[in-house]
């Protein structure tokens, strides 16, 4: 009560000068910040916009050259054609087969590579054996090696066992080249867990697989989400391994897209090309927008070196 009386008495005498929050004016600096960000955003959005509007235009309208304009005559034919009947050389089945090939490759490679990497990370954290650290060092080195250095011997090796240009072959290749990053991811994750967890498991009498399945596996759900995002986008977007190892039968979508767009027969149908491009980018884009911040975490995790 008394403090209030004093305060009102004081503030009555001291109501001079500024009071309350500093008035926020839209300063030049603030405008500059937004201008920079908006201009940058336009740069990043421009290609997406161009892709979409081009894919919805008719060829005559495209030839008029208004690259950024919304189509005067909206058409969905390019999308249908890109999916169903676009030609690569003599085959005219559109992107459809490539899409299903990519689905097959991704659906098989993602779980296989993740399960193997999970066991690797677990063993490297809790069940070190003589030479395990050396193997891990080799893997980390492998993360930095240009693929070109290993590709040719790998082709020869896979042909020797009859797996070159087959579905299992491409799955093995994705598993091999995903292993360094994923193993690193899981090893860092398991290493961050309290060792007491492992000791408690040992005291309870669980062994290598018992601790793995009953304690570690249920705990690694968040990191596995990161790994799945990393692998789905990575494998779907792969081009090099698809060209070299998949063979004609299992050609993934990216390779087929490139063939459709760069095919030299007939006139170039830009609207079909752009529709095909969007279709190819659709799966990773959906993954990206659904996963949101997990995606960023995945990149950061993948980039962290041991």
């Amino acid at each position, binding site marked *: 009560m008394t403090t209030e009386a004093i305060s009102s008495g004081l503030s009555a005498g001291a109501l001079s000068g500024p009071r309350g929050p500093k008035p926020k004016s839209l300063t030049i600096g603030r405008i500059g910040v937004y201008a920079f960000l908006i201009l*940058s955003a336009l740069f990043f959005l421009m*290609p997406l916009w161009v892709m979409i509007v081009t894919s919805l235009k008719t060829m005559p309208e495209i030839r008029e050259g208004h690259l950024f304009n919304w189509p005067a005559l909206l058409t969905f034919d390019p999308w249908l054609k890109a999916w169903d009947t676009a030609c690569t050389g003599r085959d005219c089945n559109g992107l459809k087969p490539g899409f299903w090939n990519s689905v097959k490759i991704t659906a098989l490679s993602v779980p296989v590579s993740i399960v193997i990497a999970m*066991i690797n990370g677990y063993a490297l954290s809790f*069940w070190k054996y003589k030479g395990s650290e050396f193997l891990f060092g080799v893997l980390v080195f492998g993360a930095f090696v240009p693929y070109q250095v290993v590709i*040719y011997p790998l082709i020869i090796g896979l042909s020797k066992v009859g797996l070159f240009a087959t579905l299992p072959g491409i799955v093995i290749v994705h598993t091999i080249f995903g292993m360094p990053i994923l193993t690193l991811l899981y090893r860092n994750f398991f290493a961050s867990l309290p060792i007491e967890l492992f000791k408690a498991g040992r005291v309870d009498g669980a062994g290598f697989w018992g601790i793995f399945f009953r304690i570690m596996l249920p705990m690694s759900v968040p990191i596995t989400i990161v790994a799945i995002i990393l692998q789905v986008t990575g494998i779907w977007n792969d081009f090099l391994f698809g060209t070299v190892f998949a063979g004609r039968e299992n050609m993934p979508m990216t390779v087929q897209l490139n063939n459709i767009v760069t095919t030299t027969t007939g006139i170039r149908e830009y609207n079909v090309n752009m529709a095909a491009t969007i279709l190819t*980018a659709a799966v990773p884009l959906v993954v990206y927008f659904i996963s949101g911040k997990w995606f*960023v975490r995945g990149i950061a995790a993948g980039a*962290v070196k041991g």
Partner: protein
Amino acid sequence: MTQIAEPGERAAPGFAGTAAERRPRTRRKFNIQSILGTTPMIATAVGVFIICIIFSIIWSFTNSKLFPNFNFIGLQQYERLWRTDRWIISVQNLFVFGVLSLGVSMVFGYLLAVFMDQRIKQEDLFRSIFLYPFAMSLVVTGLVWQWMFDPNLGIQSAVRQLGWTNFEFAPLVKQETALYGLVLGGLWNGVGVTMAIMLAGLRGVDSEIWKAAKVDGIPTWKTYLFIVLPMMKGAIATAFILQCTGVVKVFDIVIAMTQGGPGVSTQMPAVYVIQHITDRVNVGQGMAAATMMLVPVMVLIAVQYLLRWNANRKAGRA
């Protein structure tokens, strides 16, 4: 109190010591499981990242053509390689592409991160916009930018239609500029990642550092440049290494955007290797080029070791 507690505490490490002595024996029994479980890793590490690389190097000393053989011809493939304009230009291109991509990506990425750090209300929206290209494959990136750079129907013509008839923006049609078009496409794809890593680094800086700088009256830009930037070594190294490995491996975007042309103006080492083992049926030459690609990686690893060794030595002295 403390005197009573001490003997107990002293006993504890002794107990832990005996446990530690006993542990290896029980462990070895289970190590068989561990080795079995990591068979794929052993196979990959030894079979792929050691043996395959050794074979690549061995074949680089042979005259292998369509199929690999073991007719050793010494350093002839390397001599030929370094006499081939196509290869020399590839290396030069990679160098220019790498320096430009890395430089611009780091500067632009840091700038974007700094601007994003200004309490932007729509931060999540901007982040999504800057980062979404990275979710798309480099083939998609290459094809989109190829279309935008189309001299007759792309950006150039769109701007000319606005009345700016002398406007020129079709880098891919000229030998001198094609490489810059490639850089731009690559940046569009990857800058967002640099931004995201840098922003995480900025957010990791102790907030009291900012307060101290404000009390000291240091202008915001000086704080970012002289105080915060040097504190972000980790984030910078991460972004740098990520970009570096991307640059050395650059392949997809070249194939999709320029196929190495016009002429050999956007030819790259990675493309050179693949072309020699597929179209040109000259495995020995391809392997020599591949082995050369390993050199910068080795240098990078050596530098890192040296830095770490140096840091350890410094820490030991202090």
